[in-house]
């Protein structure tokens, strides 16, 4: 009962490039603007979102025939909240080093638009296999976007990359502030659109 014609690999690649959640779909701008202050933040949050997205997509896809249409959104929210809690507790118990770094971010994921949107647009209609690849693609697309944003802001804001002093001085501390997040996200969106246009032109589309 699948309504999409795309193959699994196409779904996966689209999530990262053609339908990148932050640069193309403009979803989950809150973390993109507020938390993308360093590459490490991007990696940590990206991994957490990836797990939550994949698990939530799979769960909703499995129960999609039993969800009452009028309480779709509460069901999505409950699923996401449950998975976020489970991941938070499991990290705290078995991977304390990661928990110390990520703990603060994991709890925020419940409010992200990208996951709820993906469940509503895709997972509640598509079978398990397709939902898994879509979730994986979207999660990785999010992580990729956060890492790129984090790299730009960390390098220009504090002269560091992944905590290592690359430049030795802080070019423009402004880039670490939330207002700069808006600027950088907007500029990156324009940049990626430009790349896409140039690529399509080259391909003769």
């Amino acid at each position: 009962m699948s309504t999409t014609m795309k193959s699994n690999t196409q779904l996966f690649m689209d999530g990262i490039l053609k339908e990148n959640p932050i640069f193309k779909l403009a979803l989950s701008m809150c973390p993109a603007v507020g938390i993308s202050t360093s590459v490490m933040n991007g990696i940590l949050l990206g991994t957490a979102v990836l797990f939550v997205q994949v698990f939530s997509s799979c769960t909703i896809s499995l129960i999609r025939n039993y969800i009452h249409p009028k309480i779709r959104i509460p069901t999505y929210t409950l699923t996401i909240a449950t998975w976020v809690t489970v991941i938070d507790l499991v990290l705290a118990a078995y991977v304390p080093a990661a928990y110390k770094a990520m703990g603060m971010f994991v709890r925020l994921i419940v409010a992200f638009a990208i996951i709820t949107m993906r469940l509503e647009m895709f997972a509640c209609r598509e079978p398990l296999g397709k939902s898994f690849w879509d979730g994986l693609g979207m999660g990785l697309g999010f992580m990729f976007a956060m890492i790129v944003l984090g790299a730009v802001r960390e390098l220009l804001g504090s002269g560091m990359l992944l905590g290592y002093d690359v430049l030795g001085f802080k070019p423009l501390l402004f880039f670490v502030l939330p207002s700069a997040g808006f600027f950088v996200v907007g500029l990156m969106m324009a940049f990626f659109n430009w790349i896409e246009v140039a690529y399509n032109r080259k391909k003769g589309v």
Partner: protein
Amino acid sequence: MKEIVKITFALTLSCVIAASAMGLTFTVTAKAKKHNHLMSVQNAMMDLLGFGEDHPAPSDLTFHNVYRYIVKDGGKKFLGYMVPVEKAGKEVYEMVMIDLEGKFVEKLEVPISEGQAEEAHDRASALEKVLPPNQFFTYADASAVATAGGERLGYVLPGKFPGFRTFIHVLVAMDPQFELLGLEIMEHEEDAGLGAEIEQEYFKNQFKRKSFEILKGLEVVKKPMPQEYKKYLEKSKWVEGMFTEEQISEIRKQYKASDIHAITAATISSKAVTDGVKNIAKKFAYRIGKLDGVLEEQDIHAAF
């Protein structure tokens, strides 16, 4: 009507399933999580006191926890300290009640072992059994006294105070003369690149070795930090032969009484930590002074 019933049922069922999943995960992981937390606190405590791989702790190093409670009796307020006491070779806890001026009121034995006393819930039930029903107690804080070879090595105090965003949780270590041995930032939600720099060595280590007198009047200055001082503070980045013994003691002497250099664009966070540490140190020094006085006067053999 039937729709509403269906919806209510479906929602309730979903909530129940979600709650069971979360509850199950919690029960399975709770023990491991607590253990990890305790280990990280223990490691931080050892590190603060100056022990590590190249400076191992003495084998008889023990931490004795003193729990402070506020006890209300009618209109009167007392401070109740749960102190580990040596009695006939065993360690038991005694609740030593002191009034707000520091005078001894009474002492009661609390039937609880040191391991059990670490659980707030067990402490509360043990205290309920011992205190008369008209006295209400509230937990205030815990401090750890480190001893080795019958001598006090130092104190490790957890503390919490408001930062720029939310609260900052710290661990402060002092030696028996209340000189600050070290400061560790345990939890915070400050901004990355700004307030979060309080975790960096060049900020934290400024507090090391400040004597109690200097600590009491410590302020924050918005002056750029001299490069040499910064290199000295970032101990983990030292290379062989970077500083001679002479240079180290020179730098130490020069900056011993200096105020704390604020983090660029994070003055509020820097001030919050400085004031927070000052308060923790001053309050503890006052309280332990009063407690020691009472313990000596009443001839109570504390385990420290």
